[in-house]
């Protein structure tokens, strides 16, 4: 292989993934010296000249003017005149999936790439150029390719590639002397929608030295203390005079051991708790960050009311009777009632980013939907203009698609108000964290029969507890109370929602 030089599409800058062949300055068969101009390459930003990395004869030019070539793909092969044709073919076959595919186009489409012999003439090869395709630009095939043991790679990169089932032929090399590096593997995985977890092995206290420490220099007090505390002197610093382990060193080692494993006793080996550590998923990370920020930034206060919903349940019954399949839920009615209340008390229908208040005209109500890996809040837009049936259908559609993960961003971003309902789990009341930058969130408990007092008489009614968490920076107690009062009015007298 000595003396054969492959010229590949260079990477001029972070974003460059491919370049267009603007002009060839040489032809196949030309003799050239190191540093001679080979071709001009045009990227989305610049036109620049690729020069010869070594002298020799131009044996192959791969790619026609105007062709887009991915970074790292072979553009030309330079070799001494005495290098055999089949040796060059072998390098092309081994270097990338591009050359063999080109040969397939030459011959029958069914032929195995490796089994195909070299093209007979230059003209045939050139004719084949325009139809070739680039396997390595299709990210789904990281594992595909010939034996990659000959590809130059750092030991870590090779190991990780093996673990991740990456064929090194599919990776663009950027390291010293053209080696494939760990960063190259990560880039290839990323281009393929995967990522590399760097899982550092946890520090392992069970590996702390159990060896004989009788030869360690220590003060008599330190040695006695170490025996009492079950500390091995080999685990202690020796900061005492003349490098002896001092009493302080033993105490420090004991407190280190205690901090890392508080229940360790000398007699029994530490039983490791069966805990599996997992990195946060992207969704969890977002939830964590946003709720943390909300709880930190927005001063929450809660206002609670009990609502009698017998009338509302009767309305629901009436609505559901003729519509066999379209089941309106209590939650759908709550969305409608909240929309009416937001219109009636617009001070709650706001977003606040810390600087400016966005006053919403319509009620865009986010409904919390629990997922396996977290939760998402799809939004019923303009709920004040929609009927209960429309709202019901929309909520069902959004929730279904939320669980399938097919919501579009605009379907769960924004909104001025959220409803979180845990009633179906039998929770009778709770309070929720505001979905910032929204101004408030309504937490809905279960509808259940409770004793109530009417005109001095004990009675039974179906009751529901609503808790409104509000951002006190923009919503005051009286405003929140007015809103809840309006909401209770709509829920207890459903006909008023029609007004």
């Amino acid at each position, binding site marked *: 292989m000595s003396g054969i030089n492959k010229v590949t599409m260079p990477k001029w800058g972070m974003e460059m993934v491919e370049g267009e062949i603007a002009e060839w300055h040489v032809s196949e068969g030309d003799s050239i010296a190191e540093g001679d101009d080979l071709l001009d390459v045009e990227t989305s930003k610049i036109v620049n000249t690729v020069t010869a990395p070594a002298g020799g004869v131009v044996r192959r030019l791969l790619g026609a003017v105007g062709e887009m070539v991915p970074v790292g793909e072979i553009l030309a092969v330079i070799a001494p005149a005495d290098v055999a044709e089949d040796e060059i073919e072998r390098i092309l076959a081994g270097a990338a999936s591009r050359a063999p595919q080109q040969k397939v186009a030459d011959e029958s489409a069914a032929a195995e790439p490796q089994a195909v012999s070299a093209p007979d003439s230059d003209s045939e090869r050139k004719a084949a150029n325009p139809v070739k395709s680039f396997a390595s630009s299709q990210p789904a095939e990281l594992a595909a390719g010939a034996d990659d043991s000959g590809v130059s790679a750092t*030991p870590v990169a090779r190991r990780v590639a093996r673990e991740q089932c990456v064929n090194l032929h599919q990776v663009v090399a950027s390291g010293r002397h053209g080696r494939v590096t760990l960063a190259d593997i990560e880039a290839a995985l990323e281009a393929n929608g995967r990522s590399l977890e760097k899982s550092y092995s946890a520090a392992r206290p069970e590996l702390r030295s159990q060896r004989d420490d009788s030869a360690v220099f220590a003060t008599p007090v330190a040695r006695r203390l170490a025996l009492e505390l079950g500390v091995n002197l080999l685990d202690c610093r020796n900061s005492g005079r003349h490098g002896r382990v001092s009493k302080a060193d033993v105490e420090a080692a004991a407190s280190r051991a205690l901090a890392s494993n508080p229940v360790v006793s000398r007699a029994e080996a530490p039983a490791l708790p069966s805990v599996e550590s997992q990195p946060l998923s992207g969704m969890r990370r977002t939830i964590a960050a946003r709720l943390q920020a909300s709880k930190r930034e927005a001063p929450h206060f809660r206002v609670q009311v009990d609502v009698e919903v017998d009338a509302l349940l009767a309305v629901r019954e009436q609505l559901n009777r003729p519509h066999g399949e379209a089941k309106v839920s209590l939650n759908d009615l709550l969305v409608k009632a909240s929309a009416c209340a937001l219109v009636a008390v617009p001070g709650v229908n706001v977003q606040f980013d810390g600087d400016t208040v966005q006053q919403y005209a319509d009620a865009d109500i986010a409904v919390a939907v629990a997922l396996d890996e977290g939760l998402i809040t799809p939004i019923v837009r303009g709920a004040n203009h929609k009927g209960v049936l429309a709202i019901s259908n929309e909520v069902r559609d959004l929730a279904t698609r939320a669980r399938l993960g097919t919501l579009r961003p605009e379907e769960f971003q924004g909104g001025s108000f959220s409803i979180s309902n845990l009633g179906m789990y039998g929770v009778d009341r709770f309070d929720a964290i505001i979905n910032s930058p929204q101004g408030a969130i309504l937490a809905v408990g279960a509808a259940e029969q409770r004793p109530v007092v009417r005109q001095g008489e004990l009675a039974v009614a179906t009751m529901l507890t609503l808790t409104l968490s509000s951002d006190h920076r923009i919503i005051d107690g009286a405003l929140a109370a007015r809103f809840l009062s309006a909401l209770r009015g709509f829920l207890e007298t459903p006909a008023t929602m029609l007004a």
Partner: protein
Amino acid sequence: MPNKTIREVIHDTVRDEMRRDPNVILMGEDVAGGAGCSGEDDAFGGAFGFYKGLVGEFGRGRIIDTPISEAAYIGAAAGAAMTGLRPIADLQFFDFLGVCFDQIYNQMAKFRYMFGGKSDTPLVILSLVGAGLRCGAQHSQSLHPQVTAIPGLKVVMPENAYDTKGLLLTAIRDDDPVIFLLHKLQFENACEVPDEEYLIPFGEASFPREGTDVTIVAFSAMVQKAVAVADRLREEGISVEVIDPRTTSPLDEEAILESVEMTGRIVIVDEAWERCSVAADIASIVARKAFAALQAPIITVTAPHTPAPFSPVLEDLYIPSEDDIERAVREVVAYRR
């Protein structure tokens, strides 16, 4: 494949290169004749017998005995290199660096840059470093950090006979000054070495052991000790990766950083003193470029900041030992924030 010692590899490689390229010459004290031997040919073959027999084949025109003046013959070698020869200059003990340091750091290292890139200086200075031969403070130092610090010099520290051959061939054929440093305790170490020629590029580390819990970077004679520690700890379930950068300049930062990114822990072992050393340099590189990956403080294992003792007992304490390395590895593995 024949088993060869580092001494044999140096002999054979210098011989083969002198046969291949008539521009290759060898100069140094006692490389042709021998002190106290009335000038007779081939009494010594150099202070360590690397070149025994070569004067018979190549004659005194190409195997050149020099006066005991390192400043003179290292300077002469630099001039010869600039004017077209490819000298190999034998500097015996690298402790003599001080005598010829001007020729090295202020002359040969600068030629290419000060003459507008028009001047090559294809020169190899072959020398020995390290303690353990009971040679005393003036013949036991590891001064590779001093030359690693100078741009324009390449510094090679092979650990075994196989690497010695591939790196020495690269060094002789390189067009820049190369400082080629062997450890005094190692040149009788043997391993399988192919007869055919192979070049090992500068700046590419080898990984004598691969592991996942902690990375040891070790140089020269320390590699063997690091490997022994890795094998010992493997039985306890601690998986140690051992990296031998093989050249301190250029340094394979990439390989070291990658490994630390996977293990999160690093111990750097070098026989040179720690202040302003290659070990401190690598610790700095890792702290600056792989900080986020670190799960434990970086530990360096080096000789203490003192001249090498002449007492054998003390000298053995002075040289970083397997136990020192093992203790450091255990410390980083057991470390909890």
